[in-house]
């Protein structure tokens, strides 16, 4: 089986499209909005981070509302004592910072005594802890010293004052950057940045190995005790679009950020792998050879769903930062018409390659004023609306078909072998509406 003969027509963008990367994104006008937002705060990131990094514990220093968010809204089911908890700030803590620090030390010491399996403890700042100016960085240093190296204590912010939803992963990983060991001089390695489900990580590992990437690491690692090294030989490849802060911190430590689209869909994945290969001087033909089988398989899988998506109109409400790459996939590989793409914030450095692949007349909005956005949505009446869970049922009740966005963050959707699964997530609500008689 040769790749060339079976390569499906849908893969419209040849690898040379990458030559545009980073120079044409100015073409799309961005409409900025400010107002009421319907998004999670960065604490929500704990939901997947605590599962990914298995020897880490996340202690939110916040209010009952924070605890409530984690327990009920995030849909996290408490089975055992999970690897996250909330230290609830009470009246007394608000009265004096001295008391508050003392109380935090007590809670942490108790927790670490009860859970000897914790190797890394993240103190997670929340809206209230930030407003009362509780210095968790300082507390983390103090507690780390007290633990005498037994437990690493780090701090980051998941507060809604400065993070939205997936940005909580960015602040968490940024806190890990100073902890990464220095890569020995003269060693080249590839560092893939952003949480991927283990199954996807393993697929990518096989592909990178086949390409002949000398040394491959993932951040976050599955165990916080196995942090990847970083240095001037590190090539950084972002697997998620929301890790801009971490990428900048790694660049400060000498790493080189590779510009690439994200590995969603066939062309996204191919270009993403291609960018890594290019950085290591691996020939494009080799990339073609290694990816051909998986790409062909993916094209076959995608075929079935494309027919159901082509020509359908879709709007994205701002939520996870995945909006732009997903819109690009649905537009270019599934033939969907983009009505509006909303993002919580636009990080041009992380989105350059993606924006190049989007139509220049795209209605792109940054930030949110939810009521006005809903007014536009009602006027547009797209065939499919991607939105958060707070809005999905009310919009369905208005006759709009929705896809709840949180599933796109939790499900394995990256890479060749998930391209069809990703398309199916958008087909299902349309399909469902067609099936139901009432």
């Amino acid at each position, binding site marked *: 089986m040769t790749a060339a003969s079976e390569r499906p027509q849908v893969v419209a963008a040849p690898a040379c499209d990458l030559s545009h990367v980073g120079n044409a994104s100015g073409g799309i006008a961005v409409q900025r909005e400010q107002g009421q937002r319907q*998004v*999670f705060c960065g604490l929500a990131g704990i939901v997947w981070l605590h599962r990914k990094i298995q020897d880490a514990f996340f202690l939110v220093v916040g209010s009952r509302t924070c605890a409530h968010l984690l327990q009920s809204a995030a849909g996290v089911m408490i089975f055992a004592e999970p690897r996250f908890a909330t230290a609830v700030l009470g009246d007394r803590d608000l009265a004096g910072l001295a008391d508050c620090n003392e109380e935090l030390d007590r809670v942490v010491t108790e927790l670490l005594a009860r859970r000897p399996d914790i190797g890394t403890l993240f103190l997670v700042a929340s809206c209230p802890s930030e407003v009362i100016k509780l210095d968790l960085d300082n507390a983390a240093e103090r507690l780390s010293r007290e633990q005498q190296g037994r437990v690493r204590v780090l701090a980051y912010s998941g507060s809604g004052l400065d993070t939205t939803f997936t940005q909580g992963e960015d602040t968490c990983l940024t806190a890990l950057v100073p902890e990464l060991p220095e890569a020995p001089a003269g060693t080249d390695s590839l560092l893939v940045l952003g949480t991927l489900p283990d199954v996807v990580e393993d697929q990518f590992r096989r592909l990178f190995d086949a390409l002949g990437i000398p040394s491959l690491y993932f951040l976050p690692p599955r165990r916080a005790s196995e942090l990847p090294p970083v240095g001037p030989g590190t090539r950084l490849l972002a697997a998620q679009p929301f890790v801009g802060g971490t990428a900048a911190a790694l660049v400060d430590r000498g790493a080189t950020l590779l510009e690439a689209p994200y590995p969603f869909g066939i062309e996204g994945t191919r270009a993403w792998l291609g960018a890594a290969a290019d950085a290591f001087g691996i020939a494009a033909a080799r990339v073609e050879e290694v990816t051909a089988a998986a790409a062909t398989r993916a094209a076959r899988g995608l075929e079935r769903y494309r027919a159901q998506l082509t020509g359908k109109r879709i709007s994205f409400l701002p939520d996870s930062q995945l909006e732009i790459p997903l819109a690009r996939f649905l537009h270019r590989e599934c033939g969907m018409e983009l009505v509006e793409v909303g993002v919580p914030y636009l990080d041009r450095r992380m989105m350059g390659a993606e924006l190049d692949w989007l139509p220049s007349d795209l209605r792109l909005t940054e930030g949110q004023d939810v009521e006005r956005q809903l007014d536009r949505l009602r006027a547009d009446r797209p065939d499919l609306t991607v939105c958060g869970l707070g809005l999905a049922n009310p919009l369905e009740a208005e006759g709009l078909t929705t896809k709840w966005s949180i599933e796109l963050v939790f499900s394995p959707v990256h890479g060749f072998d998930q391209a069809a699964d990703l398309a199916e997530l958008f087909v299902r609500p349309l399909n469902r509406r067609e099936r139901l008689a009432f």
Partner: protein
Amino acid sequence: MGAIRIAASMQGVHCVLHAPQGDSYADLLFTMIARSAKRPPVTYTSFQARDMGADTAELVQRRLREAVERFQPRALLVGEACTGELLQDQPAALAQGMGFDCPVIPLELPAFTRKEHWGASETFHQLVRSLLRGQPVRAPDPIAEGRRPRANLLGATALGFRCRDDIAEVTKLLDSAGVDVNLSAPAGATPEDLLRIPEADFNVCLYPEIAQSTCAWLERMFKQPWVKTVPIGVGATRDFLLEVGQVAGIDTSTAIAAGRTRLPWFSRSVDSTYLTGKRVFIFGDASHAIAAARIATEELGFEVVGLGSYSREFARELRAAAERYGIEALITDDYLEVESAVLALAPELVLGTQMERHIAKRAGIPCAVISAPVHVQDFPARYAPQMGFEGANVIFDTWVHPLMMGLEEHLITMFREDEEFHDEAVASHLGSGSVSAASADVAARPAATAEPTRSADDIGADAAPLWEPEAELELKKIPFFVRGKARRNTERFAAERGVARITVETLYDAKAYFGR
């Protein structure tokens, strides 16, 4: 959160909360858990770090103006979420100074000290007070006016446990006793409806956690008596009708006699013999927990081994109830504390909230949900009240179905080695998909080997006794639904006597000591 529940229960009310982005997650509890087709009527100021350098008060005013313009509420609730409270922008005072046409009700909800139920109760109370302020006391007299007595049903809210069906059932129940419902609030009411509260002859406090303070205030201000019995269970429903009779000055004995429920007969039928003395652990809001304890003991013949609640405001009532069953009440909002109580007591059935459902699932104990916090499953499509005579039927089914059926228990003992009934087979009514207590137990334990084994929950506890392989095998002969208890009892027995290795003898010594 409490304030949002009141606003979301009503119509024509809007709530503006001074809260950071992220707090809007509260919306999805309504739209997803209760499958609400409408967004809760809440506007969040969504302030961010960059706003805090500037004038957040100006931001509050802008949101207030936008919300009033867009939603045109007939009553506006204004408050702060926890972080909003720290900014001290006084949003309610700002709103009152903005000259809106609708009444502005300031919410003073100290989010750092009080919880959701208190917040809901206080919001409802403030709303009723603000709207009824200055209204004259009326003296409605059904006989003089030639009508049936009229009652208000107070306390049902969005996200409450089975409120939708309870209102329908209690309305039916009151109708059978010759009482009309004037209105239900907060659920389903408009601000104009609240103005009609004084037109009723009395109030029914359906959910004390939400409505007790309002009922007490209405009694003081409007001389409206109120019915305090919560009609959950057959006995409580009868008591409720009796109290309605006293408060309304009517004879409700015919209604009591006519009440149809299958619970008493089902409980007497021989299949239910196996329910006798089943050890049950109860945790929930105070009203549901207290009602459940009464049903469990008086109507199903269970033994209540644990009774607890997260409602600190009703700790006294709960302690009094616990005393009746000779146990100590557990008042806590720490689910770890609840979990350790469940594990220590090793009940055969847990009646709790969704949190206890997870605890029970993990411990392999059957469980039924009796109280909020709720799950999407607690908003069933079918009619499933907890209150009234039909509620008693629903409760019988919901509590008994998770347990092994009477006949099944016997079959398992008889055909223990049989393919269909072997240890790891799941009770037939649970379907093949679920994991039985037995397999969970097996999975958690190392297979019996030649080496003595230590119970998995005791790793780290050096004093835990070891099981001799023969004792471990003997333990397996005990039906799985009591095996966990047998294991714990034996270990406790051994530990208390300083026995380091559990033999077959120790197992039977412990059995004799504890009895079944």
